[in-house]
C-alpha cells in the first residue's frame, strides 16, 4: 500500500465536560454535567451493589431487585414510574452489572424535576408486595429464557467464563440466577437487600444535559434532601489469587449451529492501578478492533480459523465500570468443524509476537484514535455521559477522570502494550469452548 495513504493523526481531541460534584447532608453523592444548549437531560442513579454482592442461595437477586424498583414506591402506584417518564416524552431503563446497578432516564429538559421526584421516591421506599414479586420473577424467567436458555450462545461468554476462572461464590456464580433461587426469593429478602444496599450513602445521582447548575442543584436538594441517611455497607470481599495453571471447560450448546471459544486472563486492579490497567484496555483493541487488528487479520482473514473475533476488558464488555478482580477476554466464533485448540494456539502466537515486538507506532496511534472517537461518541449521548460520570464517582470518587481518559489512553506506550501481551500466557488462562449441538 502506498505510504501516502497513511494518515498521521494530530493530537486526539479531548473533552472539556463541565463537572460539578457535591454531597448532600444525607450522604448522597451528586454529579452535575450541564450542557445548557442541549434539549434533553439524562438522569442516572447508580447503587454500589451488583451481582457480586448477592447472598448464597439467592443467585440472580440483584437483577430481580432491579426489576422490583420499577413496581411502585411510597407515592407511586405500580405502572406509575413508566407512565410518568414516557408520558413526559422520555425513555428509561435499568440494568444490573457485576459491581453496581443503574437506573437511567432520558427526557426532554422540561421534565428534570419530575424524574428526580421519581428516583427519590423509590430511593426512600420501593413498594414491594408478594404480587409484584411473583410477577417479576415470572418476567425475569422469560428474560432468561429469551436471552440465555432458548437461543444459541446464550450467556456466552459472560456467564460461562466466570465459573471457570474463579472459585469463590461472588465471582463465580450465575448472575442471572437459577430458577430455584428466583422462586425461593421472598419479600423479606427484598426488604433486607434494600435496607442493606440501597442506602443513599451507597448511591450516586448524576444529571447531564440541558439545565443550569444552580437550578439543578436546587431541584436535587428539594427532591433528595430528606431521603433518610444510611451509610454504605462494607464492600464484599472479592479478592482471589491468579490462576497458576490453565483451566478449560467445554460444553454442548444444543441450539448453536457452529462452535465458539473464549479465553480470559486476569488484569491489574482497574481502580488501584489504573496506569497498569490501561495498557490491557488498549491491547484488547490492538488484538481485535476491525480488519486491521492482529487477531482478525490472522484468524479470520488469513487462516480462516474463525468467522468473527472480539476482545474487551471486563466480563460485560466495559473496561471502566468494573472492580478487581476482572479480566481481558478474547472470543471467537468458529466455522463448522473449527478447532478451538488451534484458535487458542494462534492467540498464543500472536500475543507472544506482540510481547516481543510491541505494536508499531502507527498501529498504536490509529487504535488510540478510534478509542478516542468512541469515547467522544458515547459522551455525545447525555445518558451515557451521566452513567459514566456516576460510575466513576461511585467507584473512584473521580468523575472528572472522564475528561482525562482520551489523553490517558493516548499516553499508553508500545512497550506497555507489549508487556501486557506478555502476561497472556497459557498457564494463566481460563477458557471455555462451545460445542455445536444443532446439526446444520
Amino acid at each position, binding site marked *: 500500500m502506498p505510504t501516502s495513504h497513511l494518515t498521521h493523526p494530530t493530537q486526539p481531541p479531548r473533552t472539556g465536560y463541565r463537572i460539578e460534584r457535591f454531597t448532600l447532608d444525607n450522604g448522597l453523592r451528586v454529579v452535575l454535567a450541564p450542557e445548557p444548549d442541549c434539549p434533553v437531560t439524562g438522569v442516572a442513579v447508580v447503587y454500589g451493589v451488583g451481582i457480586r454482592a448477592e447472598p448464597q442461595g439467592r443467585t440472580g437477586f440483584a437483577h430481580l431487585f432491579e426489576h422490583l424498583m420499577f413496581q411502585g414506591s411510597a407515592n407511586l402506584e405500580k405502572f406509575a414510574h413508566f407512565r410518568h417518564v414516557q408520558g413526559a416524552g422520555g425513555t428509561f431503563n435499568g440494568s444490573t452489572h457485576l459491581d453496581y446497578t443503574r437506573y437511567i432516564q432520558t427526557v426532554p429538559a422540561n421534565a428534570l424535576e419530575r424524574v428526580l421526584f421519581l428516583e427519590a421516591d423509590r430511593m426512600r421506599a420501593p413498594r414491594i408486595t408478594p404480587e409484584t414479586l411473583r410477577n417479576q420473577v415470572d418476567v425475569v424467567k422469560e428474560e432468561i429464557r*429469551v436471552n440465555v436458555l432458548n437461543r444459541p450462545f446464550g450467556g456466552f461468554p459472560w456467564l460461562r467464563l466466570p465459573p471457570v476462572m474463579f472459585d469463590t461464590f461472588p465471582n463465580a456464580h450465575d448472575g442471572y440466577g437459577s430458577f430455584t433461587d428466583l422462586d425461593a426469593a421472598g419479600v423479606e429478602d427484598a426488604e433486607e437487600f434494600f435496607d442493606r444496599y440501597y442506602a443513599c450513602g451507597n448511591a450516586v445521582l448524576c444529571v447531564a444535559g440541558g439545565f443550569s447548575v444552580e437550578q439543578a442543584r436546587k431541584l436535587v436538594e428539594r427532591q433528595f434532601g430528606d431521603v433518610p441517611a444510611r451509610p454504605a455497607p462494607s464492600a464484599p470481599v472479592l479478592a482471589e489469587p491468579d490462576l497458576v495453571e490453565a483451566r478449560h471447560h467445554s460444553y454442548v450448546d444444543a441450539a448453536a449451529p457452529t462452535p465458539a471459544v473464549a479465553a480470559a486472563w486476569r488484569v491489574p486492579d482497574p481502580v488501584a492501578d489504573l496506569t497498569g490497567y490501561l495498557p490491557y484496555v488498549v491491547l484488547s483493541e490492538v488484538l481485535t478492533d476491525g480488519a486491521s487488528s492482529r487477531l482478525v487479520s490472522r484468524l479470520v482473514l488469513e487462516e480462516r480459523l474463525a468467522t468473527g473475533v472480539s476482545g474487551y476488558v471486563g466480563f460485560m464488555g466495559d473496561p471502566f465500570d468494573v472492580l478487581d478482580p476482572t479480566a481481558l477476554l478474547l472470543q471467537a466464533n468458529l466455522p463448522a468443524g473449527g478447532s478451538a485448540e488451534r484458535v487458542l494456539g494462534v492467540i498464543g502466537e500472536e500475543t507472544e509476537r506482540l510481547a516481543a515486538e510491541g505494536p508499531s507506532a502507527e498501529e498504536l496511534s490509529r487504535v488510540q484514535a478510534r478509542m478516542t472517537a468512541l469515547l467522544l461518541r458515547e459522551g455525545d449521548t447525555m445518558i451515557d455521559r451521566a452513567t459514566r460520570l456516576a460510575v466513576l464517582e461511585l467507584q473512584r470518587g473521580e468523575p472528572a477522570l472522564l475528561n482525562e481518559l482520551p489523553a490517558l489512553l493516548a499516553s499508553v506506550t508500545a512497550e506497555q502494550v507489549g508487556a501486557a501481551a506478555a502476561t497472556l500466557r497459557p498457564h494463566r488462562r481460563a477458557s471455555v469452548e462451545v460445542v455445536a449441538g444443532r446439526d446444520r
Partner: protein
Amino acid sequence: MSASAVRPLPDLEPAAPLVLPRQAEAVLPSGLTVIAIARRTTPLVEARLWVPMAEVDIAEGALLAQTLFSGTGTRSATGIAEETQAVGGSLNCGASPDRWLINGDCLASGLDRLLEVLADALCDARYPDREFSVERDRLADRFRVSLSQPPTLARTALLRRVYGDHPYAVETPDPERVGAVEAERVRDLHERRMRPDGAALVLVGDLDPEEAIELAGRRLGRWTGSGRKVTMPPAPSPTPGPLLLVDRPGTLQSSLRFALPAPGRDHPDSAAMQLANLVFGGYFSSRWTENLREDKGYSYGPGSVVDHSLGGSAVMIAADVATEVTAPALVETLYELGRIATLPPEPEEVEQARRYAIGGIMVATATQAGLARFAGTLAGFGLRLDHLALRVERLAAATVEDVHRVASTYLGPGRATAVLLGDAERVERGVASVMPVEIG
C-alpha cells in the same frame, strides 16, 4: 413503606419547541444528493449513504454490502481498515430489500480521509476473490446463527406469509444460497446498481454545511454512472387468515408474530396511527405490555412497531412467551387488539402517547448519531428533517377520534396475518381452541 404525607408529582416545565439544525443540500452532477447538517456538540462526523436496492437478489445484495470494503485497485481490505481507523473512524455497509446503507463515522478532522476511502470503494471496489470468499463464508455463518434463533425463524415465516413473491418476503437469505454466489456476480451487481443517481449522502456533526457539501463534491464527484432506474413495487398489505403454527419441537418459548396493515410514512393518518400503536403496544406504558408483562408475567418484552418501507407500511407485533402460557397470551393479544379497534381510547392515554411521540423526536435527534439515523432514513424516502416538524404538528393535532378511527381501520385482530412458532405438540390444542390454526 413510608409513613410520610403524600408528595405531589412535580409538573413539567413548558416544553421547548423542536429546533432543527442548520443544513445545506446539493445535487451533484452525478445525481447524488448531498445533505450536510451541523450539530457541533463533539468533534465527530457521522455519514450515512443510502443507495436504492430494489429488485436486487437479497443474497447478492447482502454479499455486496459485506464485501464492499474488501479491496480496491489501490487499497487492500486491511489498508482500508487502517486508514479509516487512523482517523478514529469506521465504515460498514448493510443491506435490506429497500437499500444499501453505508454507515461511517470519524473524528471531524478526518472527514476528508473518510470520504476519500469511501469514494475509492464506490468507484473502484474489486471484490478480490480471496477476500470475497472469506467474507462470503462469514456472512453465511452469521445467517446460519441468525436462522437458528426462534425470533428470526418466526419473523421469517411471517414475512413469507405476508409478502409471498414480493422482495420483502425474505430478509435473511438462505445461507446455502449466499455460499454459492460468485464474486463475478457481485462485481456485476456493483457495476449495474451501486450508482450515485438516486442515492443520498447525509453528513452530520462538527462541520460547516456549505464546506462539507463542497468537500463531498470534491471527493465523491468521480463516483458517476447511471444505473437502471428501479423502484420498489408496492408490497401487499397483511391479510387475515388462520394462525400459521410453525413447529419447533423442544423450544422453551413460543414466538407470536402478527402483521397488520398501516398507512404510509407520509400519509396524513400516519401520526394518528403512531399514537394508536403506542396506546396498544408500541411502548412500555402500553396496554399490551402492561397486560402481558406487568400484570400476567407472560413475556419479557412484547412490542409493536409501525414499520415503514418504500413499498408500503405494516404494523409488526412480537412477543416471546413461555410455552405453557401460549394460548392465554394469544387470548390477551387478541383482546387488546380488539379493544383498541372497537372502543375509543381514554383521552389521557392519547395525551401520554402524544407526549412520548413528540418527546421521542427530541430525544432521538439530540445526538449526532441519532440525527444522522433520522436524516439518513428520511432522505431514503425523499424526505428531509423538516418532515419531523410536520410530524410534530400532526402528532399535536391528532384527536382521540382520529386515533379511534385509525385503530378501527387498521388494528382489529380480524385484519391480522398471524404466525406462531412453538412446540406444536404442547401448544396446538390450546391455540386451536382460540382461533383457527394451520400447521406450517
